């Protein structure tokens, strides 16, 4: 009985995914020609920013790499803001205000990320210390 239920559940889940995928999976690639700004400098800035912004519906992909519709929306939004003369940090702030720190692929330096940024440095110092201590023998 139990396995029967399990299979039933699995089938439902799979059908659901197939259904969802037909809704979302249109065959497109990331940055599309119609998005690209005419001003090369501005486009460069947009590309750099997009490489640091996470695609919220993907796994570990930047919006620059992602073909999800939401990523495209964000790419267009970033380009619009650049055209409006916004500075890079203003755009980052705008995005984190809306989506939180989760959207940044490079986590900001905060109290909660202190360990993340300083521990590697600390490990390095400890490592060097160990080598020196050991080599005195």
């Amino acid at each position, binding site marked *: 009985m139990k*396995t*029967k239920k399990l*299979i039933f559940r*699995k089938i439902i889940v*799979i059908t659901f995914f*197939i259904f969802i*995928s*037909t809704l979302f*999976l*249109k*065959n*497109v*690639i*990331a*940055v*599309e*020609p*119609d998005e*690209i700004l005419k001003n090369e400098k501005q486009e460069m800035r947009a590309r750099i920013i997009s*490489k*640091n912004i*996470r695609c919220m519906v993907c*796994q*570990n*992909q*930047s919006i620059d*790499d992602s073909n999800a519709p939401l990523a495209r929306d964000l790419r267009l939004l970033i380009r619009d803001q650049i055209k409006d003369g916004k500075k890079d940090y203003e755009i980052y702030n705008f995005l984190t205000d809306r989506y*939180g*720190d*989760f*959207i*940044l*692929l*490079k*986590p900001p330096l905060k109290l*909660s*990320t202190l*360990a*993340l*940024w300083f*521990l*590697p440095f600390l*490990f*390095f110092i400890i*490592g*060097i210390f*160990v*080598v*020196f201590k*050991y*080599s005195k*023998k």
Partner: protein
Amino acid sequence: MTSYLGNFLLWLSLFFAISQFFISRKSNEQNKKFISISVYGLLISSVSSFFLLMYAYVVSDFSLVNVFQNSHTTKPLLYKISGVWGNHEGSMLLWILVLTIFNYFIFNLNNKNNYFFISKCLETQALITIGFILFTALTSNPFERTIFNQQDGLGFNPILQDPALAIHPPLLYVGYVGFSAAFSIGVAALKLSEDKKIPWHLYMKPFVMAAWSFLSIGIALGSIWAYYELGWGGWWFWDPVENASFMPWLLGTALLHSLIMVEKRMLLQNWVLLLSILAFLLSIIGTFLVRSGILTSVHTFALDPARGIYILVFAAILGSYSLYLFGTKSKKFVNSNYFAFFSKEGSILINNILMVVVCLTVFLGTIYPLLIEALTSNKISVGEPYYNSTAVPIILPAILIMGIGPILSWKKDDKLKTFKKILPVVVLSALTTIFIFLIYKSYSLIGIAGVFLGLWIIFNNIMILIKKLKNYSIGMVVAHLGIGLMILGITGSTVWQEEKIIKMKINDNIRVNKFNLVFNKISEVEGPNYVAIRGNFLVYDNKKNLITELNPENRFYPVTNNFTTEASIYTNLLGDLYSVLGEGNINSGWVLRIYYNPLVVWIWIGAFTIFLGGVVSLRNNLTKLKSLY
């Protein structure tokens, strides 16, 4: 029927593993026959259960849930076979298979003198095997039966249908599981710490060498798959799944090199034992991260926690058991041999430390988002930019030291003499770097550093070969050359990648680097289990000679209702022309994304060279081991 037989074989292998555990605990000569029965029984039952599942895939036996969910009658034979390990349950069966094969290898090491030691190794190896068989049988049984008769399977993700990915998991698992043997040997050495005569490091080294070589090539194949199949133009994304294999590799690298130190000078034995324990624990934790679903979110883990919790508890048991043993016994392995900073062992120690620091950093980056999500209401992402500014800068000095380490002598080296030795290499590397940059006129600090370091490694090793420096190992030279080539490839493809994204109509052309692409035609093609739209682009060089044709595809797999993009890549030694076809129609044109990735192929050549070097060293290790018998 298949289900019953499979379950029977699975439980039979559990029975043999348990009997091996208990018999090897009380090892004496009379028991030898029973240990041998258990080892062979375990090997035969796990091999049969694995091939039974493979058979079920080949004949599309949909009475198994696992086959039903992951296979389809229209799938090409190769992918039916690789489908066995292309899913969670089957891959655990593969894990068990490799475990029992290594178990058999350990058993084969026994002779009259070391019988006691080997049986201690087999005890731990049996414990690990029991853990994984129970995990498979209880939470991930590949032999679960379907209730209804199924007409056809649900297929499996077409993006996974790729030759590189088909052999990627087995190689990776040989790597992960190879560390289990090092773990068992390390634990046995700690248990028998009173007996100084056991050359445990000679037993451990071939296993570490094999594990490390296969892990290297396994990771490389994963990268090759990502590069060819994902169509993003990149090959490494610092994805948690990639990190899970990279961390044991880093510790494995450290372990491998410090084993040389034990062999030559009996230094740092306790450090090696610790590394052998940690390398395998990290392999298990990597499996936990990948298999539990915790990586996407702490909350997805909560949805189906059984698997994750099991692995975590198992890792905790093995970890506390082995680390406790290490804590109490490792003092016996301390020796006070003379140790100088400026020597071969000094350079090995520094690089050991750097590898461990990089490993800790990668570990931190991988689990930090989970910690933040679990402890606060916040969520953060740790992506490529983080690793580029933390892990990568630590790797750079390691590469610098790696060039000169093999040239230094043991115990103590003369600074002036060494300087004279490396001076030609420094000059040669610097001149070549300058020469390259004068030709290409594309300056970048990272580019210069990368090219210099790559050449530094290559020239140093060539010098070792030419001058026939004292007792170098050919395997080491080959593997290090591979690293040098790989650095050149990595630098080239990351620093000088060019990209063009445009909409093209038939007969339009576009210039990328020194190539000119002409959109020739677009057509519909039909594959074995997909339909596709295929663009055809003619590629001309500067002199308008036709070099090649690129045929990027958009595929649709009706069975799983998937769209995939199939990149078309022209590879040569200088660089890859990488094309991906996007959306479009006849009237407005088709979107095309083209990359020029310089030197990418050298990453793969480098990886295979590293593997080759590992295999050569493995042969040497085995010869050395045979001389004990």
